[in-house]
């Protein structure tokens, strides 16, 4: 058993938000999935205050050793999540981490407050990659702004608060330090990197949402560098992710300072990747000089 922010976990491998839909998977692979769940914790895809349709298709582009997505955070909104999803997800044999995003501090506060009331939710992950309406930058891109946001919502919950940092910033370590100073219990990174694809027929941007986010092996070494820097800067635990495909990749993130490793795109190629990588991890015990 592993301990993360006071939560007991079977192993160090969880899913990356938005890359595994436990309810859809149960429909497809059957209830057995609920017994032998591949991940040590289940992270929901991002929930917003109000329902979102998501971006118009096409939403995917396969790039060099990676995937660009422009899904647009489709979800039925906080209300439906509390009412329908949480009861269904409560049947999972692993702790539930709920990932939320608000476009203002008020929204984030409202999301956190309502999740605080639900015992089924073990931890809250804040997706701060949402563009700030004023500056156009991600609200998580500015260390001071992030500290202020955390300081504000920290008071609203006793549950572990994980900040999903944005990689679209000049200094991710400073942002992590800001989140820590504001009272975050952990940080997770990296989120997808802004990327674009052009339609083969020359009709312009391919993705319905315009630009998208790059994930997969192509970003693995960028994730490794950011996790290394962040882990060297903050004392709170780090959840590392980005292009992890095998136990060795996971081990490298742990050696870089990650407490847990999250699997995103690889789960699309192998829905049992989480269990496989956790197994492969057990075999390896590098402990390196940092």
């Amino acid at each position, binding site marked *: 058993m592993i301990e993360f922010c006071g939560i007991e976990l079977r192993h160090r491998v969880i899913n990356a938000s*938005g890359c595994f839909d436990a309810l*859809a998977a149960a429909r497809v692979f059957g209830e057995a999935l609920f017994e032998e769940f591949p991940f040590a914790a289940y992270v929901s895809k991002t929930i917003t205050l109000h329902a979102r349709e998501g971006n118009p*298709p*096409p*939403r995917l582009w*396969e790039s060099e*050793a990676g995937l660009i997505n422009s899904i647009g955070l489709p979800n039925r909104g906080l209300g439906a999540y509390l009412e329908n999803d949480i009861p269904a997800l409560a049947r999972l044999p692993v702790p539930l981490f709920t990932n939320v995003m608000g476009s203002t501090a008020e929204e984030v506060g409202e999301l956190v407050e309502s999740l605080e009331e639900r015992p089924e939710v073990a931890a809250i992950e804040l997706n701060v990659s949402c563009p700030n309406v004023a500056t156009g930058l991600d609200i998580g891109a500015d260390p001071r702004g992030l500290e202020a946001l955390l300081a504000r919502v920290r008071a609203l919950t006793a549950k572990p608060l994980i900040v999903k940092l944005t990689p679209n910033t000049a200094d991710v370590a400073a942002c992590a330090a800001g989140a820590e100073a504001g009272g975050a219990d952990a940080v997770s990174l990296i989120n997808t990197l802004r990327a674009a694809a052009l339609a083969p027929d020359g009709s312009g941007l391919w993705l319905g949402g315009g630009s998208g986010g790059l994930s997969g092996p192509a970003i693995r070494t960028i994730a490794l560098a950011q996790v290394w820097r962040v882990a060297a800067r903050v004392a709170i635990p780090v959840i590392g992710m980005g292009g992890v495909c095998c136990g060795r990749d996971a081990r490298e993130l742990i050696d870089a300072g990650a407490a847990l490793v999250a699997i995103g795109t690889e789960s*699309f*190629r*192998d829905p049992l990747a989480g269990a496989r990588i956790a197994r492969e991890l057990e075999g390896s015990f590098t402990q390196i000089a940092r």
Partner: protein
Amino acid sequence: MLSTIDRLARPRPGQFYMLATAERWGGGEGERPFLARAVSVMRTHEDGVIEFLLEDVGPGTKRLCELEAGQELTILGPFGNGFSASGSETLLVGGGIGIAPLLELQDTWGGLALLGFRDAEHAEGARLFTDAVVATDDGSVGHRGLVTDLLDRELERAPTSIRACGPPALLHAVKDRARRHGVPAELALEAPMACGFGACYGCVVATVDGYKRVCLDGPVFEAAVLA
């Protein structure tokens, strides 16, 4: 044409698998393919053997076509809803590689197949059908023109329903006629897919009640629900 064995599941017509090669998946044009590729079940056999029909349209299908007998295939599935049961009065309309799922459908529930192709070479696949009428753009086999010409003719005979699979233009034409003639139709759609099992939300299609995941709620949709 590619075949493999699935002893666990017996796929239903219209369902698909996500396929990749175990070795050297990647390293092709643009360092691709990276993700697995969705491929419809073309035909199944009692012993669990499943046959697929592939057209080389890019790095993924190219690599799958290069696969030699005995080499390892990574396979996930069967996925998707598949077609609902139909009868002998059902018309099966297929275009190009879209004929694949209709073969298993005909083998299971019968029905006349109307198949459209670019030319004789691409029309090869039609041979596999027990009961089919063919149209080719260049007239090298069967009717010279579109498969929808054949459909218009057959619609006079008031078929009970239609099942279609093929390029967007074909599906659109079928949807159109189905509405005009008041004949229920089921269309098997395609969409770029990353996972095939509802995890990525990347394969959505617009329906009368919002975006739906083609891999999970489809790939077969009633023509009437498509926006």
